[in-house]
């Protein structure tokens, strides 16, 4: 989340690279945003592009349901790691996501990295779904930009 910035015209920009590949940083991240770490990183510390795809999936789910599948259950670090490693995301975990996007999100959050969709394919599927749903209207964007302005002011 901290790595995504929103510009004044409502475009998302990615920033802060390289830390995801640094295994030393993993414990720190577990404390902050546990769900963004893919299960294989907990179990084998294997970092790959599939882990980025997992993080994208969690980001999307987070926008619809801030309490994602494991938040609130965490007690200790080791327990939390066990929970992520043993948890397979199913359709009940992502109940707030619109039905149209549920199948894609499940592919993004596939348990094993080899079964996870690639970012490129996911992008194509999202664009197809977006075409069915209709693209963003100016009014929608203004609502979003106003919400961001308010949250910046209150912070």
């Amino acid at each position, binding site marked *: 989340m901290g790595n995504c910035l929103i*510009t004044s015209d409502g475009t998302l920009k990615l920033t802060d690279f390289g830390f995801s590949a640094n295994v030393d940083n993993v414990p720190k991240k577990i404390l902050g945003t546990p769900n963004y770490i893919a299960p294989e990183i907990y179990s084998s510390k294997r970092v790959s592009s599939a882990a980025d795809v997992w993080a994208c999936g969690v980001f999307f789910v987070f926008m619809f349901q801030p309490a994602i599948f494991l938040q609130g259950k965490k007690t200790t670090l080791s327990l939390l790691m066990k929970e992520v490693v043993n948890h397979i995301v199913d359709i009940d975990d992502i109940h707030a996501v619109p039905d149209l996007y549920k199948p894609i999100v499940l592919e993004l959050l596939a348990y094993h990295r080899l079964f996870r969709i690639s970012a490129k394919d996911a992008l194509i599927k999202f664009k197809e779904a977006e075409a069915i749903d209709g693209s963003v209207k100016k009014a929608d964007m203004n609502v979003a930009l106003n919400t961001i302005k308010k949250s910046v002011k209150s912070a």
Partner: protein
Amino acid sequence: MFKLNLKIIFNINILIINRMWEEFFDDKIKKINTIKTDWTINDFEKSKFLGKGAYGSVDLYIEKATGLEYAIKTITITDKIIDDPSIVFTELLNQIVVSGHPNICSIVGTFRDGNNLMCVQDMCGSNMFGIDFTKIPTKVKVKWMTELLSAVAHCHKLGI
């Protein structure tokens, strides 16, 4: 005697930093045409603090000559970085490689200020902490998701 030793250690550190800088800056960065390398700290005026990263802070600076806003990351070269320069430089080089994509915050330039490595980035806007997502329309969320995936796919294509 003690004072003399300290002086020697200090000088060696400076030498190492200078050598590291030459290796990194002259050999790698100056060959990339898209990056501006002739800025100094005097070209900018500090405006406000934006955030803190793992190896330094990010501040909003205004370029005196043009009035343009830039987010500049200050990385102080510490012993940890001298031991393993790749922790900072790999990240920086990676970001330079993927710069230019519309959904990636690009690095415009980089320069040295004493023992600090300064990375000049485009001013991108606010981060997403604290946003009330219940008030954001679904279509906007999907637009952001396609933009994020597009940026991630771009990085993967370039092997990052």
